[in-house]
């Protein structure tokens, strides 16, 4: 594929994002014609209410979520030098939603507004520390995937256990909402709650970007560049935990965004790890926003979950990557 100028690519994906954002604001369950958003229309007030209270927060959250998950995936793949790394595959998202479940169903989240995202973030940190502990210095793909399977299984079991013990008798029925994410209950409050964590997480990973480049020739060469491996790993855990924790505490697990997006970006902007972060953020936002628009267009009497759409797109992509790795000898 032709390697385009990264700047051009960034501009194109930014424009695409703007177009998708406008579509996202105009499309939804409540069927308003474009003319009804004009002040002269009799339905103007109702339309404006839906636009500002329902569609705007949902659009903003989809953008934040896609950027956060895609940048997490790009940073994880870069740091671990593993093309299959992703918060969902590695069980980090799953742990974050375990944290959110404990916060909600045991009443902790009513103590203060920030407890919900904070619990999810702490659990995301915990899972990453566990992951790196299990895998150690061995960065072969298979160990990461097995460690991810282990973490996902553990968190799935603990989620069920937590919901069994939850004071609310209907809690167990909600487990599916946490394992397959959705944006349907997002309001401006959730956007405001998670945005600061996501912005800080993005800044930490952006600041850590050059260490990903150094690591592309392996840990020892990176150290010969003067890289402080411990510090870089700490920043990775901090940043990815903030992003994945904040997003998951509101939407539940949305897989595959972080896995897919960096692979689409790489052939276009070159495979230098630091260079794919910004384009990944933009394309990740486009992908989740497009998927969420699709969710609203397809109606089965019940709203489709965005987590389902991402899994339907993502699982074949994951398979494609595995086949690809086998062809090239893999690692």
């Amino acid at each position: 594929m032709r390697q385009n100028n990264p700047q051009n690519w960034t501009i194109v994906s930014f424009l695409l994002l703007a177009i998708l954002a406008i579509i996202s604001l105009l499309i939804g369950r409540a069927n308003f014609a474009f003319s009804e958003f004009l002040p002269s229309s009799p339905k103007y007030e109702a339309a404006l209410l839906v636009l500002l209270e329902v569609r705007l927060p949902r659009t903003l959250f989809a953008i934040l979520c896609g950027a956060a998950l895609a940048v997490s995936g790009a940073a994880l793949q870069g740091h671990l030098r593993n093309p299959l790394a992703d918060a969902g595959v590695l069980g980090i998202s799953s742990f974050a939603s375990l944290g959110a479940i404990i916060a909600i169903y045991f009443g902790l989240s009513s103590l203060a507004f920030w407890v919900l995202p904070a619990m999810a973030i702490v659990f995301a940190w915990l899972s990453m520390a566990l992951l790196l502990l299990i895998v150690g210095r061995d960065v072969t793909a298979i160990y990461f995937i097995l460690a991810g399977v282990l973490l996902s299984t553990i968190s799935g079991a603990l989620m069920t256990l937590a919901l069994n013990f939850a004071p609310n008798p209907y809690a167990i029925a909600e487990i599916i909402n946490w394992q397959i994410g959705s944006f349907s209950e997002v309001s401006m409050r959730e956007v405001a709650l998670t945005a600061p964590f996501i912005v800080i997480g993005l800044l930490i990973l952006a600041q850590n970007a050059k260490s990903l480049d150094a690591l592309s020739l392996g840990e020892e060469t990176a150290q010969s560049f003067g890289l402080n491996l411990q510090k870089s790993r700490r920043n990775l855990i901090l940043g990815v935990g903030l992003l994945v924790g904040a997003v998951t505490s509101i939407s539940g697990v949305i897989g595959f965004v972080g896995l897919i997006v960096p692979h689409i970006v790489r052939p276009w902007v070159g495979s230098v790890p630091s260079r794919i972060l910004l384009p990944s953020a933009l394309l990740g936002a486009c992908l989740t926003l497009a998927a969420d628009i699709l969710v609203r267009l397809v109606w089965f009497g019940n709203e489709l979950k965005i987590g389902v759409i991402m899994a339907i797109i993502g699982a074949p992509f994951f398979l494609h990557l595995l086949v690809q790795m086998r062809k090239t000898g893999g690692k």
Partner: protein
Amino acid sequence: MTDGVIASGINVSIGGREIIHNADIEIAMGEITILIGPNGAGKSTLMKALLGLIECGGGSVTFDAQPKQNITPTQLAVQIGYLGQNTKPEWNMNVEDLVSLGRLPHQELGISSKSQDQAAINEALGALEIQHLRKRKIEAISGGELALVLLARVLAGKPKYIFADEPLNHLDVAHQIQLIKALQVFCKNGGAVFAIVHDLTMAARLGNKFALMANGKIVANGDRQVLNTQNLSEIFGVEIATAKFNGQTIFVPK
């Protein structure tokens, strides 16, 4: 003489097992020092210990008469280029992007402008005569070309010292000679090379100082004379004969 690397009394233990015992080594400017020894003798470990990639259990290393502990990792990074064993880039980037990684320590210290970076990259590609590969992807070039590209990455950092762990491995003769020449030019221009080489004939051709290592100890060092039948037979445990051919020394195990 103050420039050069001097290591003395290096000890390294990993997991309670002593890998390096009381090793002394000197890397002088303008010279190619070659470390020779059987598999498992501790050669790679010694090289990593000098660079601080592995912690030393004892001994001292000085770069240009400065104790290594007084030099920050990034300051050291602009002085050295480490060509690790079996290094392979994890991502299918193009050759120029890979070579530009050699500029990371300078960028980190903020002591290099964009045009200086580009000039260093061009110079490194030119030194190895691989300008034509510039826009090619790593996965689309041969193993021999990749070895040259990885050395260009090291040269782009404009190091004073090159540490190369088995740089000639898996290369055909033409690429071996090309690599040897590039390292010799680097030394002629005032740099110093410390390399681990297994092929004795190539080692003798490449180096002008030699250190022999066995069981974690340096057993002999000096100029070409240390590569004698007796020393080599002793450290490898097989009899090795030498002969002169076209003015070069060749080594043949019996």
